[in-house]
């Protein structure tokens, strides 16, 4: 680099790298996510107690060296359940928005670019899906297919499609007749090329920001569904189902509801913080443009 700068006679400066001040909050949030993710991934390898082993003699035991975070209403180790619960919550919370992002994003891009009858059909069918009460949909599907994590993920993913489709279509609409798209067309770019190389890199930015929001919302919704008994099948733990079970003993052992709730809250908050910072960093557009 030094030789390059010496050889440059004119005053053109090298591309200026923006100062990357991330702030303490960002680091705390990333650290939290890293810890949670590592624990969730390594859960079966960690020296944890079995999260479904009941010990009826030690119901709602307090914190101890045996049970670091105590036991729940059925005498199961709270720490192990929290960590195994994180596996479920994070799997559902990450994969379901990916389904929405993939399908909804692609449909929105196509609808916004090609317009016409396809767009009308898309917007119409998405409105129908949006108007359908999500809980009724989830109930119907779980009643028909049974409770399992893959079904739960697909249901939540499908419910996310309309929102992603709308974000992606709106972003595409505002870009599709911009001059750089017309210029690409004049240079003989095919539809596929314009969609993938000209529009997608622009549309993906709001979609990714929305995706992180989707992760947070999905974790909460999974919690709500599990709380209602529509989520993961017992005795498997998820943060939502743990809050639901903790409700029975709010007066004697409030920590049983508050510990998973705190985990949920902190993780969702961390996703939002990290997402915001990442978006601000990676968006190459200047201001609003």
């Amino acid at each position: 680099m030094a030789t390059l700068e010496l050889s440059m006679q004119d005053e053109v400066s090298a591309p200026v790298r923006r100062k990357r001040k991330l702030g303490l909050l960002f680091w705390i949030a990333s650290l939290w996510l890293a810890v949670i993710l590592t624990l969730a991934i390594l859960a079966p390898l960690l020296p944890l107690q079995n999260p479904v082993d009941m010990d009826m003699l030690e119901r709602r035991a307090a914190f101890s060296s045996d049970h670091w975070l105590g036991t729940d209403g059925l005498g199961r180790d709270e720490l192990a359940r929290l960590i195994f619960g994180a596996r479920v919550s994070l799997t559902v919370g990450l994969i379901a928005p990916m389904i929405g992002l993939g399908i909804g994003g692609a449909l929105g891009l196509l609808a916004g670019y090609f317009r016409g009858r396809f767009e009308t059909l898309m917007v119409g069918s998405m409105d129908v899906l949006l108007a359908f009460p999500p809980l009724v949909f989830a109930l119907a599907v779980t009643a028909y297919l049974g409770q399992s994590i893959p079904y739960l993920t697909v249901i939540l993913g499908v419910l996310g499609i309309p929102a992603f489709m709308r974000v992606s279509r709106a972003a595409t609409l505002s870009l599709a007749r911009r001059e750089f798209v017309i210029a690409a067309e004049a240079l003989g770019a095919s539809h596929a090329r314009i969609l993938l190389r000209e529009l997608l890199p622009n549309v993906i930015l709001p979609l990714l920001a929305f995706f992180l929001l989707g992760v947070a919302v999905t974790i909460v919704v999974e919690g709500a569904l599990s709380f209602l008994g529509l989520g993961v099948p017992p005795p498997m733990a998820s943060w939502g189902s743990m809050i639901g079970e903790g409700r029975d003993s709010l007066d004697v052992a409030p920590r049983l509801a508050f510990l998973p709730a705190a985990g949920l809250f902190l993780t969702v908050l961390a996703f939002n913080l990290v997402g915001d910072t990442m978006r601000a960093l990676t968006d190459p557009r200047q201001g609003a443009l």
Partner: protein
Amino acid sequence: MSTPLLTIEDVAVELPTPRGNLRAVDHVDLSLEAGRTLGIVGESGCGKTMLSRAILQLLPKKAKLSGRVMFDGQDLVRLAPESLRRLRARDLAVVFQDPMTSLNPVLTIGTQLMETIQEHLELDAPAARKRSIELLAAVGIPAPEQRLAQYPHQCSGGMRQRIAIAIALSCEPKLLIADEPTTALDVTIQAQILDLLAREQRRRHMAMIIITHDLGVVAGRADEVAVMYAGRVVERAPTQALFRRMHMPYTEALLAAIPKLETAPHTPLPAISGRPPDPTRPLKGCSFAPRCRYAAGRCHEAKPDLKAAESPEHLYACFHPIQMAEGVGA
């Protein structure tokens, strides 16, 4: 005279609007040979841009196009989409008015240039990179290697327009359409960009259409000028002939409306009074008649056709052409 590269015959464009059909381009005939420059001049909304989009077949989907656009022996209007795409890739390119929006904001300059080059010239990445650097140097960008890693917002307007030109030139087009290429730039940069276009045009022997509202832009650079008003070509002539002796009152009014350096400060600019006619309600007579100083009875009754002046290349559409003793200095 060789056969023209581009011939536009009787092209008309109609856009459906809630207030009725808008005739954006009204039966225009033009032709352009390889290596020559055609200037299309007219005020905002006169159909210049629609005409250029009609040539490129990039009109909005709802627009109705009639007539023929013969390019290199093929009628672009009737070409199948895939052949049209290949032809655009090989032979056509366009530079737009606003360099802020004509570059993709989220891709680096290098990505945009190299992808176009790789697509058109079938080069591998290192060769495309080398070619991009050469192109950027050719359009007068200092330190092109560093520029490749930058995003459009990190460059100034003039710089961006140069990059847009580099991208347009990357596929070695036979015809370059420059749609108001300098309107968004300041005057010193304008001259540089126009000189750059002219230089690259000579080097590549490509045909060029410069669309502008500024007669001064085409004066020194176009071989031929077509003046458009309300969707029609109202005067068309080799540049020198036009500036030596213009026949159409509208051309004269356009020229008079260019601010001149030698006039005293606070002199009112001789603007053309009134507004262009509503394109959804065509007039019976000459479209310019309501604003024309010379308009007389017949002008409001019938549309004048293009007819030849003293030379067959100089066409104008006017019943009462200006009788000028001598030319206006260009």
